[in-house]
Structures are given as C-alpha cells and as structure tokens.
C-alpha cells in the first residue's frame, strides 16, 4: 500500500470534519479497507481512526427501547452477547456466520454495514469497472458465478454483508451523522442501487457516518433464522443468504420479514414472499409459494442460475424451520 497519515479521531465532530477533506478515509476494524489499500484500489493520504471514539462501543438493551448498538461494536461481541443471542438470535447467527473468528474480532458493525462489494472485478487493480468510475461491468459477460440475480442494473456485484439482511429483517434503523446531518433512517433505506451519478451501495456521502444501530424490541412470539449457503464451511461470503423473522400466533403467521443476501447489489427484501405468508396458516405448500415469490423476476447471468434455485431452497427451509 502507499504511505498515508494516520489520525486518531478525538470526537465524532472532529472525525466528520476530517473526513470531509479530500483523499481521506475512515478506518475502524480495517478488515475491508486494508484489502483495498493493499490492492491499491484507493490511496488515501490520510486515514481517520474511529476506534478512539469509545462511546460508540456500547451494547445497550431495554425491553422498551430495544437494542442499541454502537457502530464500533465488533462482530464477535454481537455473536457472543447473551441478550442478542436470546432475543435477536437472527443477528447473532448472522454475525457468527461471517468471515472467521480473527476477522470477527476486528470487524465492526458500522464497517460491516458499509463494506464495499467483494466482486472480483471491483477488487482487481487491472479492471476499471463501472462501479469504480469506468464504463462497463466486466461481470456481465465475464465470470459471474458470484454475481447478482435480482434487480441489478449497471453493476452486478452483490452486497456482501451478513448483518444487513438480519438487521433489516429486525426492522433496524441507523443513526447517521454528517456535516449537515444527524438523523435516523431505516437500515433498508441506507442501501441504494448504485446510479450513474452515485456509484455507491449506500446513500452515505462524504463525511457521513453511521454511529448507532437501533433495533426495536422483538414482536410477540417472534422468531428468526439466518441461513447462509457458502462454498465451504467457513470464511466465505454468502452465495445466497436469507434472514427470516416471523411472528406466529398458533399456526397463523402474524408477521414476516424476509431479506436475502448475496443476490442483489443491495440486501434484497422479499416483500412478495412476506405478503404471501402474512395472515395465513403455515403449510409447506405456503412456504413453497413464498419461496417462489422471493425469486420472482430473477435475471440470472451465464454462471449464476444456481443461485435462483439456492435462494428458493433457503427461503423454503428458513420459513419451514420457523413454523414447525
């Protein structure tokens, strides 16, 4: 990597001010950024270290307000936290399925939600792809077994986060602060399909940071499951993952949220599947229909049609496992 200056952020306000400067990047766990620096995809002159913002490391819970997670909480802390494991188990499962123990010890919640895609064209120095400001997506007619099957447009990379689908299924919101901003938005709204003028996977602009994630208290009789299909047993991004949070009243499905990972440039909410389930009595036939709806409109590329089948299977299995 090229040399850079490393500055500790004394407080959030200063961090934001520093991050507005050109050629400046934020670093927390570094598990995503360091890869880009080593590959020389980006060469910031200055890194602003957020790990010094100790007030962003807390996990707080109250039955009324729900869960509040500072952006610097690590994946390992989420994975191990007793209350998260008990009441927001889908989130603990997602954290535990990510990366490796070493990476989970370093990687932070905020960084995980804002990570860049793992697309091998995006990550390769020799490809100046559309997402990096070039004029084409090399995956479209290239090697695309890992790429998007749903809702892709100019870029076919998938959003790699495990936490994002789980948190969106839990209806999480994020507090975003920036130079002219301090507000709360739903996590689902944070993710945007990259456009010609905004070639990023989140709506965050320069100097804008997620500082906290808030998860409302679990609904009555709510249960969740996170399933992730990988190429091997560990240390793999999802080929396809699915987060399902469901509330059951007897056999009747009172509420359901289904979010898929690894299938689109953003975490993919399967609203069609949800509406098939909500208000209905559970049956495997219903789960099957919901699974079918999850992949409606899928447009696989040459090498990733298997993901359509995989997504369907995972949704069916997840819904089935929660209802039975």
């Amino acid at each position, binding site marked *: *990597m*090229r*040399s850079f200056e490393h500055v500790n952020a004394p407080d959030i306000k200063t961090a934001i001010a520093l991050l507005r400067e050109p050629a400046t990047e934020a670093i927390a766990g570094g598990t995503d950024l360091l890869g880009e620096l080593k590959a020389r995809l980006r060469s910031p002159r200055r890194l602003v270290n957020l790990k010094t913002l100790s007030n962003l490391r807390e996990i707080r819970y109250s039955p009324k307000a729900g869960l509040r997670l500072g952006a610097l909480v690590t994946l390992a802390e989420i994975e191990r936290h007793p209350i998260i494991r008990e009441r927001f188990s889908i989130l603990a499962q997602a954290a535990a399925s990510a990366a490796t123990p070493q990476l989970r010890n370093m990687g932070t919640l905020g960084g995980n939600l804002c990570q860049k895609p*793992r697309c*091998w*064209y995006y990550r*390769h120095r*020799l*490809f100046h792809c559309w997402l990096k400001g070039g004029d084409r997506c*090399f995956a479209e*007619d*290239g*090697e695309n*077994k890992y790429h998007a099957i749903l809702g892709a447009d100019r870029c076919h990379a998938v959003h790699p986060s495990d936490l994002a689908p789980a948190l969106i299924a839990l209806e999480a919101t994020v507090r975003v602060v920036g130079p002219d901003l301090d507000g709360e938005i739903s996590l689902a709204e944070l993710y945007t399909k990259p456009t010609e003028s905004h070639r990023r996977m989140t709506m965050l602009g320069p100097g804008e940071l997620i500082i906290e994630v808030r998860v409302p208290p679990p609904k009555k009789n709510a249960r969740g499951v996170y399933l992730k*299909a990988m*190429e*091997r*047993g*560990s*240390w*793999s991004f999802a*080929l396809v993952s699915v987060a399902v949070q469901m509330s059951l009243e007897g056999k009747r499905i009172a509420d359901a949220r289904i979010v898929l990972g690894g299938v689109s440039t953003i975490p993919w909410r399967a609203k069609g599947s949800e509406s098939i389930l909500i208000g209905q009595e559970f049956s495997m036939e219903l789960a099957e229909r919901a699974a079918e709806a999850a992949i409606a409109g899928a447009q696989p590329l040459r*090498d990733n*049609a*298997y993901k*359509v*089948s*995989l997504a369907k*299977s*995972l949704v*069916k*299995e997840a819904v089935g496992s929660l209802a039975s």
Partner: protein
Amino acid sequence: MPKVIKTKTEFEGRVLEEYVVVEGEGLSAWDAHVPLQFVGKKTTRVDGPERVTGKALYTFDVQLPGMLYGKILRSPHPHARIKSINTQRAEQLPGVRAVLSHQNTPKISFRRQTFLFDEVVRYVGDEVACVIADDEEIAQDALELIEVEYEILPFVLDPEEALQPWAPRLYPDGNLLGGQPELYQRGDIERGFAQADVIVERTFRTQCALHNCMEPHGSVALWEGDSLTVWDSTQHIFGVREGLARLLGLPLHRVRVIKKYMGGGFGSKNNLGKYTVIAALGAKMTGRPVKIVLDRHEENLATGNRPASVQHVKIGARRDGTLTALELKAIVTAGAYCLWPPSLGGPARELYACSNVKTEQYTVFTNTGPLSAFRAPGYVEGTFAVESLMDELAQELQMDPIELRLKNYTEIDQTTGRPYSTKGLREAYERGAKLFGWHEARTPPAALLSRRHAPKLRGVGMASQIWSGNGMPPAYALVKLNPDGTATVITGTQDIGTGTKTVLAQIAAEELGFPIEKIAIEIGDTQLGLYAPLSAGSMTVASVGPAVRVAAHEARQQLLDVAAQVLEVPRDSLTIADGLFRSPALQKPVAVHEVLKNLENFMIIGRGAREPNPEDVAVNTFGAQFAEVTVDVETGEVKVERIVAVHDSGRVINPLTLSSQIEGGIIQGLGYALYEQRVVDRNTGIVLNDNLENYKLPTALDIPEIVFEMIDRPDFRANNLGAKGVGEPPIIPTAAAIANAVANALGVRIYELPITREKILKALGKV
C-alpha cells in the same frame, strides 16, 4: 574404483534412464522382525521448537546489512510484444537503486521457451521488469512509474481451442508441446475393444489448481567478490546451484545455495525461479544484497499450477469384469511455458492388468500461467478419470467396485513386465473395506432411485492409488562423530516441511546406537553439504535415508574398531546402544565419549552413498481410500463425512511425520475435489481469484474424520531402509473416492471437478 552403470528410475510417471556411479551397496534392509529403537517410533520433530517459536529462519526472514528489495513488474496482458520500456521516472524515485528489464540484462534463456526478460509476454503475470529499491513499498511505487508500450497480440486461454488451426499461436511451431502428442501403446487397442462385452466411455474435466504454499517463493542474493550466495525457497538446492551457475556463467564452487527451513513447495519449487536469477543480477548491479519474495497474488499467477485437463477415457471389459482395453486421451493445459509435463496417462497404464492400452497426451500452450509439478502431478487427475470410469463399469456389470478392481489386479508392472518388489494393494482394499464398513455402507445403485426425495443423500465411494516413490541415486551423506559422543549428519537435501531432518536423525540414531538428541542434522547448504536429489516425487527419504544409514554404519564400524583397541576387548564382543559400549568383557557399560576423550581430537568420518535401484523388479507405492459423503439435494451442499485410507509405502520410519503427510494429502485432495479452482476471466486472461479469499482452500470445518492405516511392511528390494515415499500417495485417490461417493449418493455422476453446489443442483435438474 567406482562402477558406472545405466539405471532406470521412475519419476512422476516417466522412466528415466541415466548413468550412475554405483556405491553404497552391501547394507541390507533391517529385518522385519528385528526390534528397532528409533525407526518406526513416533518421533516429534527435531526442529519443532524453533519452527513453532519463530526462531527458524525462512528465506523471508533473512536480513542482511544493506539489503535491498526487489519487486517485479508483471504483464497485464495475456499476450503482447513489448515495444518499449521507459524506466526513467521509476529510476528517479528516491530510494530506487536499479530497474532491470530486457534492455539492461543479458538475454538469458529460461524454461526452454522464453528468456529471463522476454520481449514477448505470454500470460497475465509474465515478468516484464524488476525494481530494486530501499524497501518494498518504494519498489512497488516505482513499478507504477515504469512506462511500457505493448503491442497487443491475440491470445488463447482454452487448450481445446488452442489446438485449432485458427487459434492464435504462442510459438511459431504451434501450441502443441513437442509438435505431437505423447503416445503410449501396448497390445492392440482396437482388438481389445472388439473383444469387450461392455464398453464405457466418458469425458472428464479437471480444473486448474494452485499450490498456495504457506511460505511464498523468494530469494535473497549476496555477492562476495565473485562468489554468489543465495538463500532460496527451493525443493532442490543443488538444482538451483546448477541453474544459477549455468545461466550466470559461474563455476559451481562459486555458487552457494541455502535452504534451512521451508514452508512447503508441493512441486512448485522444484526448479530455479526467475526471481532467483533476477535477485542475483540485481545484487550484482547494485553491489548490495537483494531480497525478492513474491506476494500471495504473484504466488497464484506465476509460480505454477496443477494444469486443467480434459480426459476422454474408454474402457472395454468382458462380462466377468476382465478388462480388454483401456484408452485415455488427455488434453493438458501447459500455460505459457512448460518444463516437465505431468503424465496423466500413468494410472491408465499401470493400475490394472490389461494387455491393450493406449494413452495419448496433448500438452497445449495457452496464454495462462505456466504449469509446474503439483503433488503427484498427472496421477491425481488421471486417477480421478480412470477410477470414476471403473465405477461406472462396475455399475454396468453390476459388480462391487472392489471386486472389479480385484478382478484386474496385477502383480506385474504392466509397462515394464517386471514384477513388483512388493504390492500391498490387495491388503489395502481388504483392510480399508473392513475399517470403513464398505459392504454395509454401500447402497446398491438399484436402491438409489427410491431415495431421490430424501433431503440428504448419503453415498460411499473408493479409489485406488499407484505411484513411484523409491527415490534414486546419487545421494551422499557424511556422519561425523565428535569427541563428546555426539554425531553430526551432513547431507545436501532440504527439509521442505515434511520432517526430513527428524527422519534422518532417527536413521542415524538407529544405526549408530546413539540417543537421538546426540544427533545433529545439517542439511540445506550446497557448500557444506553433499549432493542429494530434489525433494519431489516422494523420494527424499528413500534417496537420502539409505546414504545416511550407510554413512552411520561406516562411522559405527570405525568407532567399534577404535573402541575395541582403547577398551582392550574383542571387537566382536562390543555393542553400542544408548550411546554406551557394552561387552561381556566389560564390567559396566562405557559411554562413547569416555572412549573418544582419550583420543584428543580424533574424528571419525563415515561416508555413505545411495545404492542403485534394482533392475529386475518394479518398486512402487500403493493404496486405497474410501469416502462417505452426504449431499443436500435442496442446496447442493456436499459434505465429506469421513475418509478411510490404507497405504503401502514399505516400512514406516516415523508414524508422526507420516500422519501429517497422509492427512495433509487427503485434505489437499478434498480441496481439489470440492472447492479449489483457479478462475481466469475469459475476456482478458486475468486470474480473478489470485488470493486466499476466492481461491477456496478447505478450512478446519470442512475436514472430516480421517482414519488411516499403513501396511508397514519393509520392501527389501527398494533400498536399505525398506521404506518408500509417502508425500504424494495420499492425495492421489481422494478426489476419485469422493467423486465416486457423490455419484453413489446421487445416482448421477459429475464428470468435472470441483464438485460444486452448482454442478450438484444441475445434476439434480434444479438449474
């Protein structure tokens, strides 16, 4: 006077005939029933503590005063002619000491087809230039300042396409190595198929696999006057010495190559690398030592691979299972350059008794990274194809797979007509089947259909292994006895991570009758050591071990001569064990050092050489592996539940280091079967997964229960240890056994590796 003879040695599927000077004869292998004190005993690594505490110096750890660092500029194009290189801006960067390219270095021929710095680049990753700078980061920065103007040439990535007349050519005489296929024939293949009642025929495909040694390739070069010392991560210090001397025009005694500790090679470090020669030239140019160590990306581009293959296999058999004909046509992707093509036809030629066999191999140049040896080159690929098709044949004949294999069992090497010195394969099948519970676990194919709706399918499969592994002369060793009763073993082999030092210490301790902690092993240095062959072909122990044993034996004889005189007892009455002389004529045991201390600095030097290989028998290693898998029919996930292996590599010297080899081989074979695959972008020739994130090696969670047993019977004809190699055998049958288990689970076969979720879902009609 030394006797010069012509001898035949099998190395990685090819028989080499060469002259050798016969020495080292006269010591026969230890009898199978003689109890041994060190050989055959679990022995922890003699260099374990320094390895695990970070004190062992690997090539990367070598730090010399004033040392500079080199970084190589690699081609971004799969095929191009360099029109010009402008290094001026790079040279002006503070901290840059030299920039090497074809413009300012001698035209040094390399790997037959190219030059150290060629004006034509033939794959993405091919060497273009090298910056030597004060540190690696400066060198890396400078690479971006080198301006290269390329004339882009048409390229070809696929070997079948490369054989077409219209394909872009890498070389004027075409893309086929040698201009014609390598052909082997015995009997009459057409007549053999005419005699068959059943013929099975399939096309198998295997992927390109990358070595990913823990320790990267690299060198540190130091000039002292006209003498060059190179610390090199190599499997053959003497080979590197010879290569450097030849390419740089140096006499051998001015070149020293050192490799003390190593983190794996798997065949990718068999030969001299460009980085080594570049480091030597860079050090000469700057007058300072130069280190060049490749990074993980370079490792996955430019240090070799197990080449992808397409294999058409056809087997004919009589109704009773007797093979009448076996034909294999392989297309192998050489990549841009090729020194030593693997032999994919080996298993087809050797595994079974069959009088009509034809193998044909097309090794094809493409604009991709060059192949190299990779743990049992050719045999892993060839065994997958042949042993998969044998299972299809068994199914066709409604025979048990083991029964079919036993039906075609041979005690005679089919290629030379010589009997095998020993062959424990029948026993390996029997013991393996029993350990595994083969007959209970196997679901007959007929019962498979009814299970198609179960969520998880279970299947079992097995496969056989044949490989060489007897090593060869020449290999030399010295054993010095020091006045304090310690011994130093000196030879010129290298321990590539397998435990060579430990095994040699066991052999020396056994022969000398010294405690193992009194033995020091000095290897990995051409200047101080004696010639030993490359650590490849599973032949290090079988080549070097016998020489060490002869040297230790000779030292022991001298020691007994001296001790008998000093102690004034009959020589024949003396024994040595635990470092003590014992004799009925002595009142109590006398320590070796007590005798030697009377002789001041008298030194005993035993000299040993590897004896020639036998000419009348074939020496091979054998084995069988069994796999059980479960397949999730919804998600296509394959899980290997367990592997059982039984191998015959002659006498076992160290069960501990051996278990590392067996388990490591199986794990590497499992990665090859299910996960590993180099991915090259079809439109640009760029390797997309030149990293450990997307080149998927198996993790701890993917490794099943591994149970293995060794036949552990000395091969008295092999060498004076009765031991044969075990580095490569365990990787050979794993992928085939897993593929057969998957086919048994699904009732449908997958003919292409790796067996991914996508292929499973496709085979099940879900994609």
